[in-house]
């Protein structure tokens, strides 16, 4: 079927037509193979839209080029209304002759008119090559998997279940509750932590949530929105259905081992329940220390259990579940401060971690909230807290032998909470800090309250703990008081270290399985730290709480609520797949796998020695396109044919003296250029834009083709490395252009300064004038390419073995 193209040129009530001679533009299009070129006063107005629909009907148009304001303004609307008139959205293009032309060339109407003509012609040539595209929709499994049964995971799964969505909660320990259940009180309210958390544990137990304790994710497969997750559940050796939690097994168990719930402060039986309100409310047998599993003897628990719940032949179980979304609520672990030998943790019994102090302060804890020196059981009169015992150390190595560089966020406040509880027992407390950080609701009040209770604050970090020279069990805390710049020395009974918060053990392994990137400190990386903090870099996988970094319970709960809602939203609708993906031309693919190596989204796989791109994972960044030596990759919406046609259309028949072709990243750089237009920034009219997802999509052949067809200079304007929508491609673009510059100079004898690279931030739009002015001047100085040079380039381009066949 013949392509029937219509062009409409908008005057924008003078905004365009006062500078650009639109009649001239329309006239210049006479030579083009189009059905009509019409001028409208306001193209976006109802009458104009009606007129377009009429013409479509009348002339049987199947594609339209609209020269008007920025596509960010009305393209979506045009596509929608013209779709009603039977035009596929991919066959409607907007050419920006306002922000990128009339408004920035007010001083140069003649140049602006030539430029507008070229841009529209480029648009027409491009749309000739466009093909209809459809947005695909896929179904999403309406289920959510929550990993981690601490406060974040509990809140998130309760919220998901409330919304009527099937929810799985997976916890690696025998009970849910996480670290929060280990705290006696929480700041700043000093609520009893167990009193506020226990009902939530019960809610999980009573809800539709499918709880799986002692379990971890073994493997994941499937695709976006439809994951298959394999769970591995360790044996409990006690039947959940039968156990009445009477506790006989624990009472009669002859073996005592380290009690991790009380952080090594006391012992527990190998048949145990971590805490009395545990959910599921059943006992567990710890095979690591159990006599039966070590020597095949004992079995007392089995004999004593009146409910017949002990099953020593229990085994590891695997289960497979389908889920549409995953929430990572994997929490934290405390850094092991014994690595920091100078604090004597693990060497001197009277040096504790803050988590041990939590347990000691707990009425259900190992000392029933009596504060004693572990060395001799004597009561404690004086306690010193070491804040930042490993945190905020920029010298920390990758192997973490000296702590971590970041602030662990919660230590200032929990140390004060513990100090308050100690003050209530009439114990002297000295808190050594670098800075007291208390941003958060009621936190500064809490700090004030701590001061009121007579807790002593000393600004000055403690570098080491020393026993007294006479070694009587007391510890010397020696520090500079930074407020008076004098040394102070203090003998105390107990030292409490506040070590760094780390991502929980296993986070890294899990992230690898899920292909979720981590940040430099091995916490889960947010999709965007400011604007999308509850999503990971992988669509459909969300995160909440300490999984993404240290934070207090308030924030954790807010995040859990938010992540739950995001997950519910995600699984409640069909997933739309935009038609902007890269695709493989299988006949050309030689299975070399170069594209697989470069794809930042791991969207490409090999099937039968041919690359296959997964539309669900592809972001359409274009990075894989130039890497393919066989030209076997192309892109929807930015195909090679479209680009070459647009390049030729924009340049070849131009009447302008000097032409600079600028490939602009279509989101951030394009927006910056729009703002420049709105702000009436002035730059040379030699500049002509072609938008792209990223300049990393460009092949060298396009550059040659541009020069051959009339470009005197070519520029890549790229988004900033991290901020753009496709960061890896934005990053790579700079390298790619450097390579091209070298080749131009070496192989084609072309001055490499004719090819320029720059990055533009949105707020940095003024830079555009500087960039264009100086590049324009440079090209003026170099002069236009000669016809001879262009001819050679064209020959080189068309001869190039690896160059594609265009018509």
């Amino acid at each position: 079927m013949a392509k029937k193209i219509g062009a409409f040129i908008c005057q924008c009530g003078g905004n365009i037509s006062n500078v650009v001679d639109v009649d001239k533009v329309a006239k210049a299009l006479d030579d083009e193979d189009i059905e009509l070129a019409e001028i409208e006063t306001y193209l976006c107005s109802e009458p104009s839209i009606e007129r377009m629909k009429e013409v479509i009907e009348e002339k049987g148009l199947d594609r339209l080029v609209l020269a008007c304001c920025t596509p960010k303004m009305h393209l979506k609307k045009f596509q929608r209304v013209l779709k009603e008139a039977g035009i596929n959205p991919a066959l409607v293009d907007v050419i920006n002759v306002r922000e990128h032309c009339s408004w920035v060339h007010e001083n140069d109407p003649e140049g602006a008119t030539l430029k507008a003509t070229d841009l529209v012609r480029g648009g027409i040539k491009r749309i000739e090559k466009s093909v209809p595209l459809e947005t695909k929709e896929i179904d999403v499994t309406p289920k959510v998997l929550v990993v981690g049964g601490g406060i974040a995971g509990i809140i998130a799964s309760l919220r998901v279940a409330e919304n009527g969505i099937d929810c799985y909660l997976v916890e690696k320990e025998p009970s849910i509750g996480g670290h929060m259940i280990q705290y006696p009180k929480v700041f700043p309210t000093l609520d009893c932590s167990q009193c506020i958390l226990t009902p939530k544990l019960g809610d999980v137990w009573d809800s539709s949530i499918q709880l799986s304790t002692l379990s971890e994710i073994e493997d994941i497969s499937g695709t976006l929105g439809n994951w298959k997750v394999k769970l591995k559940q360790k044996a409990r050796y006690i039947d959940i259905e039968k156990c009445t939690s009477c506790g006989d097994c624990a009472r009669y168990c002859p073996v005592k081992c380290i009690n991790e719930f009380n952080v090594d402060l006391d012992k527990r039986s190998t048949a145990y329940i971590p805490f009395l309100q545990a959910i599921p409310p059943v006992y567990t047998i710890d095979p690591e220390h159990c006599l039966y599993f070590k020597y095949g003897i004992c079995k007392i628990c089995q004999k004593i259990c009146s409910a017949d719940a002990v099953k020593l032949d229990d085994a590891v179980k695997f289960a497979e579940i389908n889920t549409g979304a995953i929430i990572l609520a994997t929490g934290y672990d405390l850094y092991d401060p014994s690595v920091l030998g100078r604090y004597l943790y693990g060497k001197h019994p009277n040096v504790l971690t803050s988590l041990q102090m939590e347990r000691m302060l707990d009425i259900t804890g190992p000392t029933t909230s009596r504060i004693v020196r572990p060395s001799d059981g004597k009561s404690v009169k004086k306690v010193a807290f070491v804040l930042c015992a490993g945190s905020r150390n920029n010298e920390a190595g990758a192997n973490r032998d000296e702590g971590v560089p970041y602030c662990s966020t919660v230590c200032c406040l929990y140390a004060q909470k513990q100090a308050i509880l100690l003050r209530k027992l009439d114990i002297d407390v000295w808190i050594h800090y670098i800075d007291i950080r208390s941003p958060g609701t009621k936190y500064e009040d809490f700090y004030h309250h701590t001061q009121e209770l007579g807790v002593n604050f000393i600004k000055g970090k403690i570098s080491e703990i020393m026993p007294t020279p006479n070694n009587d069990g007391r510890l010397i805390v020696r520090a500079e008081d930074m407020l008076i710049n004098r040394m102070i020395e203090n003998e105390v009974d107990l030292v409490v270290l506040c070590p760094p918060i780390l991502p929980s053990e296993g986070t890294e392994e899990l992230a690898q399985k899920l292909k979720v990137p981590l940040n430099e400190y091995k916490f889960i990386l947010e999709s965007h730290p400011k604007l999308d903090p509850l999503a990971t870099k992988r669509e459909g996988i969300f995160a909440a709480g300490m999984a993404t970094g240290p934070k207090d319970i308030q924030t954790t709960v807010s995040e859990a609520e938010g992540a739950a809602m995001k997950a519910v939203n995600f699984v409640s609708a069909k997933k739309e797949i935009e038609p902007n993906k890269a695709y493989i031309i299988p006949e050309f693919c030689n299975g070399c796998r170069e594209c697989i190596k470069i794809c930042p989204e791991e969207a490409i796989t090999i099937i039968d020695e041919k690359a296959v791109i997964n539309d669900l994972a592809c972001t359409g960044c274009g990075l894989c396109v130039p890497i393919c030596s066989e030209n076997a990759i192309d892109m929807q919406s930015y195909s090679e044919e479209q680009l070459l046609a647009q390049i030729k259309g924009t340049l070849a028949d131009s009447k302008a003296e000097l032409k600079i072709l600028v490939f602009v990243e279509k989101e951030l750089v394009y927006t910056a250029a729009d703002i420049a237009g709105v702000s009436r920034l002035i730059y040379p009219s030699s500049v002509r834009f072609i938008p792209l997802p990223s300049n990393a999509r460009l092949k060298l052949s396009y550059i040659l083709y541009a020069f051959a067809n009339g470009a005197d200079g070519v520029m890549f304007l790229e988004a900033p490395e991290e901020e753009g929508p496709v960061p890896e491609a934005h990053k790579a673009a700079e390298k790619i252009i450097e390579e091209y510059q070298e080749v131009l100079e070496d192989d084609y004898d072309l001055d490499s300064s004719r090819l320029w690279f720059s990055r533009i931030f949105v707020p940095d739009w003024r830079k555009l004038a500087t960039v264009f002015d100086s590049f324009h001047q440079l090209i003026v100085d170099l002069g236009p390419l000669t016809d001879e040079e262009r001819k050679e380039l064209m020959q080189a381009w068309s001869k190039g073995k690896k160059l594609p066949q265009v018509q």
Partner: protein
Amino acid sequence: MKIPYFPGCSLKTIGEGFEKSAIASAAILDFELEELPRWVCCGTVSSLTTDDLMHHLAPIRNLIRVEDIKETQLVTLCSVCYSTLKRSNALVKNDPEKLKTMNQFMDKENEYQGSVKVLHFLELLREMGFDKIKEKVKKPLRGLTLSPYYGCLLVRPKEFGIDNPEDPTILQELTKALGADVIDNPYQLKCCGSYHTVDKPNLVADLGYKILTYARNSGADALVLSCPLCAFNLDNRQREIKRQYPDFVEIPILYFTQLMALAFDLGEEKLGFDIHYVDPVPLLKEKQLLIDSLPLIKEK
């Protein structure tokens, strides 16, 4: 195996027992410590400014002497020499420009090529393995409880130290291999006062008091260390400590090589105890590690 060895000033004076016991013990382990010909003073402390190369000349001269005898390693016993030589060596190895400048000062010497590795004797021992050393022990130091002491330059700064700067174990490992018990002394890394012994002996006494008292109160019979300056400050300065702290109880100081010589049963004349301020002999006799009546093995 022959290895060039750099004695430095102290081993020829206050550290005589250190040198003798080291050479004799090394021989048991099949090392021949061969004194570097024409060695010069290492300068004792490194220059720490970026613009002072002059004070690195002496250490580099010594390293040139090693290259002159076609060797690639230089072993030291004194922590101070070790640190100084190692720092200067690292400076020129990491900075070819500085090496060039330094070589321009060498009139009579050959140019330094940067081929020498500076080692502490303890590193050699660790390399051969403490288990191997244990095999050579004839008279395990049973009943002797020791407090290891590292001080500064053996382990700090990190890039020029021989062990974890915050949690070293090398002396503990050696001591245990020789059959003695060790206590954990958190003061093992605290400075002895170093060169302040010249102008601030009271300060040195303050520091020594804590190190030694903790050791004593934690059940140690003696301190074991590796630096002659620490040895002077922690041994000879006990007189000042006693003056400042009347409750102070004296405690002997031993070099790790003296322990080795004892355990290898090499005879009292290799130990050089006569110049110690606090005589370790009564302690060692009490522990039956030195026995009066037995004839001492004569030097060949």
